């Protein structure tokens, strides 16, 4: 095993103790990419300067960045042909912060084009494969980032979630994915999908690494008016936690084995002293409609800029999924329909937010499966334009409510990873991380690696 399989903490400690150099660390990752990416296809543009940057920075840590983050001078396409060849003149705030913390960008990772999907199959440059089974999907939209970390091509990766796009692929690829509170991490330089729910976050090999990266990238940004200067809440010991298991999230149409695996994993928290309670939440199926309308509406406006100034190619290069979303969003915002769709969706969104608020008066955290099933086979999204929304049913309600959540490995079904998610109240990332870390310390699921 090369240095590429190290966690972020191990890599930092090794560099500090001079056990190896940053160059060696970067080289091992590049070799691993060379060796495996023909099969996995996690990467799009690679940074030709990565090794050189490593020679200049003895503390350099190799990182993979989702392709919807602007990277100055490094091709940024959001996996869309329309941006093919586009070299941004600036770094996204998250990218700048990662660089300031010694991140060395290996390259940009594949995703659903403009993040329109939950499979990475809508990428204009071909799908990414799940390292656990190359016939299966990695999830999405941050599929490339999740696969890169699971396959040890990078020490960690940056992704973004609009509804499930970090947690989903983290669950299906058997790694940790943290989706921070909306407004906690700057969106400046992140090519917008749905502006009101986009949240950048880390995809890592351990909970501790997720916390480290989260601390790097969080905070108010003068370039993003929706970021907030907000402290962390008080962190409770696990024996003082009351964890709610919403019965609506263990769905009958979901995979039975996944539901059972997550139930079993929940008992770990109980053994550690937490109290488990069954709760009832607003049925997550309503969040699908809310999310679909709000997201498509915002997409239809956000993608308008690609019809004016041409960054790469003409608007005819939008793919079918992009066009479907633009059309639906345009319709939902049109005069005469706005009240029935967009406005109504925002009203129901308020109901969902209130439902969570009330629930968090009774419990500290919510525990549920991240995805209702393990990773499905490639091609499953064909002809199913609502595939993503249905697959993300368990992450959408908390996303439209802006809540923080983490997905972490909690078992396997037929050799494929299962993820559980912990959802917390607004701004309570530290409470989530602490509980997740306790779980990780008492389980070994995160140590499992796919055989490639």
């Amino acid at each position, binding site marked *: 095993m090369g240095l590429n399989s190290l966690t972020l903490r191990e890599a930092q400690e090794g560099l500090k103790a001079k056990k190896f150099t940053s160059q060696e660390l970067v080289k091992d990752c590049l070799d691993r990419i060379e060796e495996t990416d023909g099969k996995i296809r996690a990467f799009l543009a690679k940074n030709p300067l990565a090794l050189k940057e490593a020679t200049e920075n003895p503390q350099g840590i190799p990182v993979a960045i989702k392709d*919807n*983050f*602007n990277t100055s001078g490094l091709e*940024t396409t*959001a996996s869309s042909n329309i*941006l093919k060849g*586009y070299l*941004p*003149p*600036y770094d*996204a705030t998250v990218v700048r912060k990662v660089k300031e913390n010694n991140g060395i960008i290996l390259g940009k990772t594949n995703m659903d084009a403009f993040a329109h999907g939950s499979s990475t199959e809508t990428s204009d440059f071909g799908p990414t494969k799940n390292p656990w089974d190359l016939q299966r999907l990695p999830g999405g939209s941050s599929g490339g980032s999740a696969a890169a970390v699971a396959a040890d091509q990078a020490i960690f990766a940056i992704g973004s979630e609009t509804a499930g796009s970090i947690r989903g692929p983290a669950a299906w690829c058997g790694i940790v994915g943290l989706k921070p509170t909306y407004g906690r991490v700057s*969106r*400046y*330089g*992140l*090519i*917008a999908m*749905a*502006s*009101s729910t986009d949240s950048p976050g880390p995809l890592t090999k351990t909970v501790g690494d997720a916390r480290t990266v989260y601390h790097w990238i969080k905070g108010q940004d*003068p*370039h*993003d*008016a*929706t970021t907030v200067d907000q402290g962390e809440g008080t962190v409770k010991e696990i024996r003082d936690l009351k964890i709610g298991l919403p019965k609506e999230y263990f769905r009958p149409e979901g995979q039975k084995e996944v539901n059972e695996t997550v139930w079993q994993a929940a008992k770990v928290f109980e053994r550690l002293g937490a109290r488990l309670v069954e709760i009832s939440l607003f049925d997550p199926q309503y969040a699908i409609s809310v999310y679909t309308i709000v997201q498509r*509406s*915002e997409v*239809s*406006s956000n993608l*308008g*800029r*690609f*019809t*004016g*100034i041409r*960054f790469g190619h003409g608007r005819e290069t939008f793919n079918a999924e992009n066009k479907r979303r633009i059309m639906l969003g*345009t319709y939902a*915002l*049109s*005069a005469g329909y*706005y009240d029935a769709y*967009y406005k109504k969706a925002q009203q129901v969104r308020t109901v969902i937010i209130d439902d969570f608020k009330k629930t968090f008066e009774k419990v500290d955290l919510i525990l549920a499966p991240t995805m209702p099933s393990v990773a499905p086979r490639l091609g499953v999204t064909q002809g199913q334009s609502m595939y993503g929304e249905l697959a993300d049913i368990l992450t959408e309600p908390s996303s439209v409510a802006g809540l923080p959540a983490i997905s972490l490995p909690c078992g396997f079904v037929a050799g494929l990873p299962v993820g559980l998610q912990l959802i917390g109240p607004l701004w309570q990332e530290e409470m989530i991380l602490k509980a997740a870390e306790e779980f990780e310390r008492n389980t070994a699921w995160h140590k499992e690696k796919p055989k490639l």
Partner: protein
Amino acid sequence: MKYTPVIGLETHVELATASKMFCGCSAEHFQAPPNTHTCPVCLGLPGALPVPNKRAVDWTLLLAEALQCQLNTQSHFDRKNYFYPDLPKSYQITQYEKPLGENGQLEIAPGKIIRIRRVHLEEDTGKLQHTQIGSDRVVLVDFNRSGVPLVEIVTEPDFRSLEEVDLYVKKLQRIIRRLEISNADMEKGSMRLEPSISLSGDEVPVPLPNDQLPPYRVELKNINSFRFARKALEYEIQRQSELLTMGQKVLQQTRGWSEDKNATFAQREKEGEHDYRYFPEPDIPPLEFTPEELEAIKHKIPELPYPRAVRLINQYGLSDYQADLLTENKDLADYFEKAVTTAAKNVSPKEIANWLINKKIDIAKLSPQALLAEIASAKETTTISDEEMERMVREVLAENSQAVADYRKGKTQILGFLIGCMVKKIGPKADRNAISQKLQEKLRVS
């Protein structure tokens, strides 16, 4: 048949903030080299986000308050989606649902009130330049103006004449300049007008209930000076009344102004109107103000030109005309009041006002003290005895017998010439009134 015009006005004013509405670029764009004041935000690059300019928000509140608007404790920005080459994001960030100010008014003449429907804040677009490079006809885009803060002031259709429009624009301009939030210069495009006009055959009271408005409305757009706006309105009154007289309908339209043809022309029918797909801008949190914050705005409003004019009339006995001219700008009014407070008793405020207005005093060069000294010295006269005056008048009349004859034939204006002859003899500070009286007396008797 005589028709009454029913006119409403949308006015756009560029705020004179140092930076643009949603980024840190310089908001100065007049004569700057093209595309030098730009960044990812005002170019609409992928991933860029808008951050509102606090000063622009404060200034808009100030203007809304000065126009007696109700200031909303909750306000927000909306996206107005449309495609045009000067709009790089393909949407303009503006205010639709909840503007900063609503339901205000401006009194343009005693008792004549124009209701203000709303005062809201938005961003300006880039500028298109239609030109030729070599043999190619091209359209160039300059994004220096893209994202400059723009306040829009919308009135109700309360104008019934062009004169009222003139008064409104003049008053509004003065208020904006007094608040020091824009130079409101129409020639430089920092103040732009978009009138809408229809004609009514009936008496049209103000305010007019919505259901009594004429059944159509012609909007005049993209008119880049006040002079042209006025011409376009005059043209429309003529055009529409001809149509109505012939029993024809006037179409609901957007029309532009052609300087060459000296006429308005149709740009867009109602059917072709955009659906802007407005929705709340998700990149900017709603603006919230406490009642205390809004109350504080009221105390930031300085004495405005019109109330000041009223005060100058009451306090110093100035005429309407004098007060109006002196309050055209704050510096002139300040200068006047400074001079009044330091003036000696024998110099009246009215005299000071007259000097300032008639002699076109350059207040930047002449201090109020120096002005008072000039007035005082002008009032000093050389006094001479009655006998001397008598003698000199006789001399002058004898020396100018032709002039005397002309005067007696009725050319009374020749008196001025004779006075001049007297002044030459006595000196520049001669008392012209006394001379005039004596001359007239002598011319009558002999």
